[in-house]
């Protein structure tokens, strides 16, 4: 983007600012849309589970426009700040909460290389920043000047220290498997058919995935872990005193964080932007240019280059498909969380801590050890072992070689040391192919 602007003789500094703003706007749009769609989904799914219809009026038969209508109503509401509240903290708390969630989107790749800031320690950054969301909750609960809100805040604080540990361990399991913290690389390692997904890598990752689901639900404060706002116990917990626009921010923060944890789960375990069937690579919509991809490139290539862009249209379309795939998976995860929420009763605060620390941590630790052993003996994964048992493990090695591609700007030499030997060949192939069709390049 910046390059494009510079090429049409925009000053350097302006070009970079504009490029950054555009990216931010795009990401904000994604965050808000995901929240809006999440709210709509929540209302419809919960309604169906409860044998009713949900919104049917605003925006046609399916009530598509209900979330904006709700938002409009809430914005029109009076903004009430209790007299006993700490005004400044009360005011900024919702924004802190929302900004923290929004920051996560910065490092979240939506497709191969389609990420605002590609970080080598992307997984780490994501976990760390997502954890900041609770600052808003705790501040808001504390600043409300209400005892119920204070309880909500304290519960959130107690909850966060318990779920963050197993959540981090779950991510460590995948990092162990992939040998990288780069989320783009992790996504690309799962290319190919669905059995390349990490969840199907071996039984240990499968269990880890479900532990991740538990912790992810806890981290987005959703039932059965919605203790900070437990409406039947704490009235509305930290949200008790909030109304109108500030409440909207908390609310959107919650849905956006649902989207984030679902997306992270999809990325780490469910193949990211790689569908169950590798349509993109079957159609040749990859940098390697298969039949259709080459065909598209011959048509679109000249036009693109006329515009002065360095872009591989076929790979770009493939990435677009992957992005749709990725978002669909994230929404699937959200749907699961909604389904779970409307099914289960809420846990008690000590039971939340017990579940996270006494159940999830041991399980995921065992899984960590299991994955360690498994990837040492059967690095290709379960399906590779099952489909080609005779030539195992050799065939699994070759399989990794041919199917995995790692894109993204990584220091190969450094990564070689860190990563398991399994990835070395993959990284080599990356080095050979370069990274054409990378939006990353374009945006710099």
């Amino acid at each position, binding site marked *: 983007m910046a390059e494009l602007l510079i090429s049409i003789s925009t000053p350097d500094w302006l070009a970079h600012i504009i490029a950054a703003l555009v990216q931010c706007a795009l990401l904000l749009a994604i965050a808000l849309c995901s929240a809006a769609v999440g709210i709509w989904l929540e209302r419809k799914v919960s309604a169906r589970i409860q044998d009713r219809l949900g919104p049917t009026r605003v925006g046609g038969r399916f009530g598509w426009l209900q979330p904006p209508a709700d938002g409009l109503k809430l914005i029109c509401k009076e903004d009430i700040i209790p007299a006993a509240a700490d005004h400044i903290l009360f005011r900024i708390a919702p924004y802190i909460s929302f900004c923290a969630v929004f920051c996560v989107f910065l490092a979240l790749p939506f497709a191969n290389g389609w990420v605002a800031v590609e970080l080598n320690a992307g997984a780490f950054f994501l976990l760390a920043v997502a954890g900041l969301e609770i600052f808003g909750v705790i501040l808001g609960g504390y600043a409300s000047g209400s005892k119920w809100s204070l309880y909500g805040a304290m519960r959130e604080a107690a909850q966060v220290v318990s779920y963050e540990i197993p959540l981090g361990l779950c991510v460590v399991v995948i990092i162990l498997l992939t040998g990288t913290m780069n989320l783009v690389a992790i996504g690309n390692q799962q290319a190919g058919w669905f059995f390349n997904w990490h969840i199907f890598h071996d039984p240990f990752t499968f269990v880890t995935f479900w532990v991740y689901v538990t912790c992810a639900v806890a981290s987005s404060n959703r039932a059965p872990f919605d203790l900070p706002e437990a409406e039947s116990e704490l009235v509305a917990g930290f949200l008790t005193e909030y109304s109108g626009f500030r409440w909207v921010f908390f609310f959107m923060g919650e849905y956006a964080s649902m989207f984030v944890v679902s997306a992270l789960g999809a990325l780490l375990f469910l193949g990211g932007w790689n569908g169950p069937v590798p349509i993109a690579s079957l159609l040749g919509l990859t940098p390697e240019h298969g039949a259709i991809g080459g065909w598209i490139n011959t048509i679109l290539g000249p036009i693109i280059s006329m515009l002065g862009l360095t872009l591989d249209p076929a790979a770009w379309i493939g990435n677009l498909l992957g992005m749709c795939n990725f978002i669909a998976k994230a929404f699937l995860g959200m749907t699961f969380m909604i389904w779970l929420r409307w099914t289960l009763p809420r846990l*008690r605060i000590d039971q939340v801590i017990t579940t996270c620390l006494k159940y999830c941590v041991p399980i995921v630790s065992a899984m960590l050890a299991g994955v360690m052993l498994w990837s040492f003996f059967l690095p290709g994964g379960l399906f590779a072992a099952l489909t080609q048992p005779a030539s195992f493990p050799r065939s699994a090695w070759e399989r990794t070689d041919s199917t995995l591609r790692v894109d993204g700007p990584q220091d190969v030499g450094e990564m070689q040391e860190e990563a398991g030997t399994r990835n070395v060949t993959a990284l080599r192939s990356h080095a050979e192919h370069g990274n054409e069709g990378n939006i990353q390049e374009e945006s710099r």
Partner: protein
Amino acid sequence: MQAERAKSDTVEFDVRTDEMLINMGPQHPSTHGVLRVVLRTDGEVVSEVTPHIGYLHRSAEKIAEKLTVRQYLPFTDRLDYLAGMNMNLGWALTVEKLLGQRVSEKTRRLRVIIAELNRIASHLVAAGCFGLDLGSFTPFMWTFREREKIVDLFEEICGARLTYSYLLPGGVTAGPPDGWFGRCEAFLDQFEPVIDELHAVLTNNAIFIKRTAGIGVLPPEMAIDYGCTGPVLRASGVDWDLRRDGEPIYTEMYDGYTWQVIAPINGRYPDDHPYPPVPPEAVVGDSWHRFFVRMLEVVQSMYLIRQGIEKYSADDGELDKPIEIRKKLPKGEAYLETEAPKGQMGFMIVGDGSAVPWRVRIRSSSFCNISPLPELCRGVLIADMPAILASLDIVLGEIDR
């Protein structure tokens, strides 16, 4: 007993912090109306609970001193508004007891069917609200859906959906319309699988068990001492049900029916129905058992309704007409308790020879059931408060009268 209580007054703490007084209610979502409970808490641990009632006081007893017994009947609907029919029945029977009047066999059959239907409706609300208070919204909608069907049946038979005024002293306003029993049985048939679904989402659910088992344990002696009745008493393992153990004017309604009193005797429930197993964490008298007893009573009520419909259809007697609106009451007083869904609902009428009672006393079941709340809630977590309150299944209309 006082000494035991004094001993349990102190709550053990590992870490003591500043105490906090916190007001739960009267606008709290899970106090089932306008109950106000003042909690003294230390962190999340509740060390003292003081219930304050009376926010819904409507002088029901004073009103009764101005109206005839027939005129007062609509007011009984407003006591336990979730079981208006049972309230009507209790009032009607008390008036009949005072008048020394017996209704016909056929009327009694109809009364059993109606009262048991309403018991199902009330227990459904209790079960749904229990789920709601534990944060599970969906069973609430399912139980209200089923209740809606019962309410439709009631609307068809008496014309109202909440305040029925149907079972009058001496008889009923009108017999059931054509085909009503068919619809009633159709409801029961489709309702039976729903019970299993409720068991799946609540009774057997691991989280539900963890939240309720061993919480708010009410030992049988304490339950009797506090005058707890109904499912609350039976869940503590006391085999006591006025439908079987009450006064003859009430129990004769249930003569000839095959059913069981649901109470865990020696930790075991009657096994005439494939009930889900009792989890090992559950202690007799805890919230889980109180919930479970209600769920099983629903099944027994279904048995009773099915038998009642059979008997009613076979009976070729006449339905009785209700008493005159200004019927004179004899001098004397009559007190009768009936087994309402929430517990034993007692009415006392003091007649002075005129049509208007001299004094009416309403002994409400929830009033007694909620009185051990300070004992039950001492030392629990705040999150257990709604669970215990929900398991007692109170209705404030009845407590505050």
